[in-house]
């Protein structure tokens, strides 16, 4: 089927099979920041924003994404800088495989959480697994970015 996808504010026409996940289609179109870690909706590294909300692209049929705004970390551009700096300043990036999805989810969280607390942040990020960092450094940086003590 032919699909017209709005990715990072640009339209892409692509011919896909109807059961293709958004993850596969995005990677095929060259958005390599979107990673595959499990394909079963359990690790979070495939997260993208759909209309500003974090979604697991491995569990999202590409066909369903038509008519919605898809954002990958490539699309955040300069808007990602403050988040990246916050994480990097804590030395929290390690292998980096979880990195782009964490940046995206944090970006969405900042917009969504009106009254952030440590607990709310931890809940928001609970679907973003990281095996390297133990989350401590990530949370230190993200708390600063979110203005939470």
């Amino acid at each position, binding site marked *: 089927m032919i699909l017209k996808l709005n990715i990072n504010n640009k339209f892409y026409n692509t011919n896909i099979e109807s059961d293709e996940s958004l993850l596969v289609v995005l990677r095929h179109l060259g958005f390599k920041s979107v990673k595959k870690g*499990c394909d079963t909706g359990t690790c979070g590294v495939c997260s993208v924003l759909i209309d500003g909300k974090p979604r697991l692209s491995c569990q999202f049929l590409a066909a369903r994404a038509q008519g919605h705004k898809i954002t990958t970390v490539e699309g955040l551009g300069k808007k990602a800088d403050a988040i990246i700096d916050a994480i990097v300043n804590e030395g929290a990036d390690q292998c980096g495989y979880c990195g*782009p999805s964490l940046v995206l989810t944090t970006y969405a969280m900042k917009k969504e959480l009106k009254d952030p607390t440590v607990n709310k942040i931890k809940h928001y990020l609970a679907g973003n697994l990281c*095996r390297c960092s133990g989350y401590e450094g990530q949370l230190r940086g993200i708390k600063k970015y979110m203005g939470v003590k």
Partner: protein
Amino acid sequence: MKSVRKFDARPKLDGSWKFIDDYTYDGILHGQLLYSTCHHGYIKKINFPENYDLSEFTMVSPKDIPGENIVPEPVCDQPFMVDKEVMHYGQVIMGIAHPNRKLLLKFIKETKIEYEELPAIIDIKDCLDNEDNHFGKEIKIDHSIKKEPKVDWKYNHNIYYTPHQEQAYLEPQGVISVYNPRANTMFVRITAQCPFFVKHGVEAIMGKAVDEVIIETSEGIGGAFGGKEDFPSLFAGVSSLLSYKSGKPVKIILERSDDIQITTKRHPARVELETWTDPLTKKIKRCRIDYRLDAGAYQTLSPVVLARGALHSIGGYSIPDTLIRGRLFRSNTPSNGAFRGFGAPQAFAAMEAHIDRISADLKIDPYEFRKINLFRVGDEFPTTQKVVEENLSDCLERVIHNSDYHKKVIEFAEWNRTHKDKKGIGISVGYHGGGYTGNGEKVLNSEVKVIIDKDAQVKIFVANTDMGQGAHTTLAQMFFEAISHPREKCWVQLPNTSKTPNSGPTVASRTIYIIGNLLRKLALQIKEELGFENLEEYVKTHLQEFPREFHKNLTPDPSVIFDGDTNVGIAYKDYSWAACVNEIYFNANTYKIELKKSWNVMDVGKVVNEKIAMGQAEGGILQGLAYGLTEFFYKPGFGRAHGFTDYTLPTTLDLPEMDIEFIHTDSKIPKGLGEVPMDFPAPSIRNAFHNATGIFINEYPLIPESLLKAMEKDK
């Protein structure tokens, strides 16, 4: 102790850093492994599904191997692909490739294999409790005194079990092999820790069929923790054979469920401890240890894990009369392999629980008991190596102070009297010998290379990989700090076996400790040889001398002498030491342990890059805590895990409050850091559970159903 920012931090976060699945080549085929779903038996027939054009597929089996069907490991007993007998579930039978990955996965799923099944050992206890399953060489560390124990000494005898643990690197195993028929070379790009191990693997399977094998890692290695040490050799062997046969580049990226089911795990262990303690002095006088590992179906690198585990099995205690046996046991499960800690977490799991058991029997606080028995300067390890520092005691004292341990012990006992839920606090200590065991570093003879260009750029060539631990940043930092060279003029190159000398594998907490120190020495040697104060100035005024190449091999420390047959001598020159206190809350309704706070103190010597070191500690400690508390891979009646749905990793919600301190950072040498955080924290959760409830548990993980069972037994 500076915190130089990691050079790869930004590209990793903005998504531009390339991991293995981000590389592509023209005409690439996708490969997958067809593996056994039988635990033990013979293959009778392979039935490929109908309605596929088989001519579109490239398939390889042992008959296609021009070289040898044996993975070159410390013990060469594992075939790349099943030759006659299937020895375990997940054993590779064939490699299959096709241009369409989706179609290939479907084809493999629909392929049915008929077996003649044989009896199999799957269960951890069935494997480890039965002496008949022992295989390979036994290790004996004999520091025994031929004298009977005194009758009034308190005898304690317990058996402790630890389970598998999955490395759970978030990037699955992946490889791309590119055969070049014109040059007759095999180029392999791979996410792996040890490029030279992979090279030896591919050379073994290809034999004389190719003239040169070159291994280069992907830019990003998405976590490894030991899991990308040995399996990649087998994996790259099969992909290379597929590329050779098809004449096309072949990429294999494992699906998560395959990765979890067929790759190496931490060895399950059974550690039997017998101790005799003088009740008056509270000194442990005698100890007998039977340390067993479930190696899986083949030995592969398990003897090396066994040696390290047995050498650490005495814990941090000075016991004059000690005898340690270490043995491997065979099961029909995939070979277990390297995982951060390498045998030591299993050793401390047993000894640290045992110490609390003796303390309880002698009615002495576990801290006081540890204090009496911990290593003192002049004491001996069971290998006769002399203890030269009391930094382990320093770690313990510090963590007791930081956690306000004494006050909490009293407070919790008081609180527990009137509450159904319980609070508990527990201690554990541990250590990790840096670098290869015994003479290993001598044998490795590691070499590093540096090229200084005309613009004073320093290119560092080492085989050690950066899998997230920040090794390439820290290694460069050790070089440029030694000669005060600008940071932006010093880079570690991507490991490639045709360009980088063999500086050994990225394992054994040796990268900074051995290779970093070697680079620092090379930097100082170059400075002395050329006689400069400022390298940039020197290069400007001596342009004709550059680019210039420098090499240095490791000069083994002559004082490190170890007899690998008798296990006598210096097993490790330097040890990293650590101690932990964990505070828990036990919910009597849900049988769940909530980890409230974890205090950790470590002596890893000089800390080169504080933030990187802290990140290593934080990540390792959480892995260690989860090992004791939540992660299980196999359960009787449940079988083995298939993915992250049934192998659950800690999330942000499982994180306790964490307090980490490095001590003795004024030391001159940076010691091993990668593994010690994994070694020591888990036992203190179990000890805290005992403190809370008075119940001892001999097995990890402390999941609610185990606690429920233990508490019912105790009634």
